[in-house]
């Protein structure tokens, strides 16, 4: 029934528009072509002006209405730079937008066709063309140059004190690996990936660097004020680590690791106070179409102090010991005290 009404409304709307157009055509015939053309010229000139004023009011109104939905304060050092770059770009383009649009519509109104008024023939001016080509070219080059500079900074070498976290996308979720005490991520090989044998990351157990690597899913913990380098990969198709609150994103490409680094500057707890939202969490959203569960591919990031982070990490068991419980010193100690030297060697 509802569908019928909608179709009927559309059809009636079409008929009404058609009838109005037809009626105005008859009116034009009755009044005389020349007179009605001049009148519609006037009306169109006025409408152009009205469009400009209503349009600018609409832009302002939209901005006022949606202000609260804009992402809040950037939560990383690079995020501040990215935001500044965007605001500078918006400021420059907004000024140009207002000047050109006002000129466009005001001129069409002011200099509309009138009797005793002839258009000024102005075919070409090299100086003018040069000015309006060179100035935008220089401004755009500077804007793009700043963007490239930040890009190289974000994807370049991380500071020496940075921690490393590996993040891998899969259909449909995120897997993280922490390098553990040695600060080195162990080697991995995609054919070793076997969640059933507790090796979802495909770690090579022969590599000693793997012995203390911690594996977690969906929730990443970071230390406030400490730079972190993300080593990004994917298991199946292309994903994208989208960190809107940190103003960063990077593709996760299967077979080709990518990196980016940043320093979180606001803890989750502080952000909850600032936003007034007790449920606030930093979000990892997949920003690259990756299949039917793309919408659900959400991870979270907890930014906390070093003490909180250490306490969280202390509760995690290295994946090596999860996958090889017979090498676990805590269990060994209960049953076989003779094995102590062996486990000592494993933990290094």
């Amino acid at each position, binding site marked *: 029934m*509802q*569908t019928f009404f*909608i179709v009927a409304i559309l059809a009636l709307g079409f008929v009404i528009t058609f009838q109005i157009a037809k009626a105005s055509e008859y009116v034009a*015939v009755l009044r005389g072509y020349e007179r009605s053309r001049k009148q519609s010229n006037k009306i169109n000139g006025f409408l152009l002006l009205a469009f400009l004023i209503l349009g600018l009011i609409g832009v302002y109104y939209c901005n006022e209405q949606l202000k609260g939905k804009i992402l809040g304060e950037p939560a990383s050092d690079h995020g501040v730079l990215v935001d500044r770059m965007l605001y500078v770009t918006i400021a420059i383009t907004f000024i140009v937008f207002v000047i050109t649009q006002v000129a466009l519509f005001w001129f069409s109104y002011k200099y509309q066709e009138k009797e005793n008024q002839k258009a000024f023939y102005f075919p070409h001016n090299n100086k003018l063309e040069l000015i309006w080509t060179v100035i935008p070219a220089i401004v755009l080059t500077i804007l793009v140059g700043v963007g490239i500079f930040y890009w190289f900074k974000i994807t370049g070498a991380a500071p020496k004190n940075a921690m490393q976290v590996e993040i891998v996308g899969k*259909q449909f979720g995120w897997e993280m690996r922490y390098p553990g005490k040695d600060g080195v991520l162990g080697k991995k090989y995609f054919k070793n990936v076997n969640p059933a044998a507790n090796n979802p990351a495909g770690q090579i157990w022969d590599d000693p660097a793997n012995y203390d690597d911690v594996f977690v899913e969906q929730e990443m913990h970071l230390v406030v004020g400490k730079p972190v380098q993300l080593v990004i990969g994917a298991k*199946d*198709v*292309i994903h994208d680590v989208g960190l809107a609150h940190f103003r960063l994103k990077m593709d996760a490409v*299967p077979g080709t690791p990518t990196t980016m680094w940043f320093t979180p500057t606001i803890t989750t707890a502080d952000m909850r106070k600032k936003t007034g939202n007790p449920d606030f969490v930093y979000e990892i959203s997949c920003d*690259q*179409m*990756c*299949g*039917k*569960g*793309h*919408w659900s591919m959400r991870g979270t990031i907890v930014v906390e102090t070093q003490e909180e982070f250490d306490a969280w990490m202390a509760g995690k068991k290295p994946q090596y010991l999860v996958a090889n419980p017979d090498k676990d010193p805590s269990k060994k100690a209960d049953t076989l005290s003779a094995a102590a030297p062996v486990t000592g060697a494993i933990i290094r």
Partner: protein
Amino acid sequence: MSEALHVHSGAAHAVHHDDHGHGHHEQSFISKYIFSMDHKTIGKQFLITGIVWAIIGGLFSVLFRLQLGYPDQSFPILETFFGHWAKGGQIQPEFYYGLVTIHGTVLVFFVLTAGLSGTFANLLIPLQIGARDMASPFMNMLSYWFFFLASVVMLSSIFVHTGPASGGWTMYPPLSALRQAGDGQKIGTDLWLIAMALFIISSLLGGLNYISTILNMRTKGMSMTRMPLPIWAMFFTAVLGVLSFPVLLSGAILLLFDRNLVQAST
């Protein structure tokens, strides 16, 4: 009343015009309006097909944005349009991505490239440079009919059981290369690739024609520097198309091979 009279006399005039023919031989309805080699008719064919696609693509965006704008509401009209893909008036996630993909493809390629570029290039190039017609009217006709064929294949992909291609209009592999990645990566993606291959052939035939017409068939006194700006714009568009579309074509064909002839997963 006077309008009707006017139309009538116009038709009479056209018939009259045809009778004499001014040296042209009689054309059948098919060769005049369907498999036409006249650049104006081909331009109109591109225009009409482009408009149809613009309506379909635009409607898709209206419908999926209805869902996006009010994610918690249900719209029975969606179920009317999409059946089991919008059960209970809410678009299923997989089909949502299918709609976005087809919307993007249709608007970028079928409307902007064929509908606009195809229409205006065919209509305006010969008129504005003073040529009788395109360099190769036959190739021009082929260009439209390859586009039409591409349209038919693309349209048919909306009606297959597993849904249209849903990997985004950029069709990045491996998502687009793996059948097991989802329903939209099954027959829908094959049809999408075939449609795109046909479409690229159409664009290439058209583009080569535009370039050779502009370079070789300008009227006396119409030097390149005197050419109207729209013609320069279309010339550049065609050159860019001829440079990039062969790469895209081989990409589409190789992806088809990958999906159908090679077992890439092993």
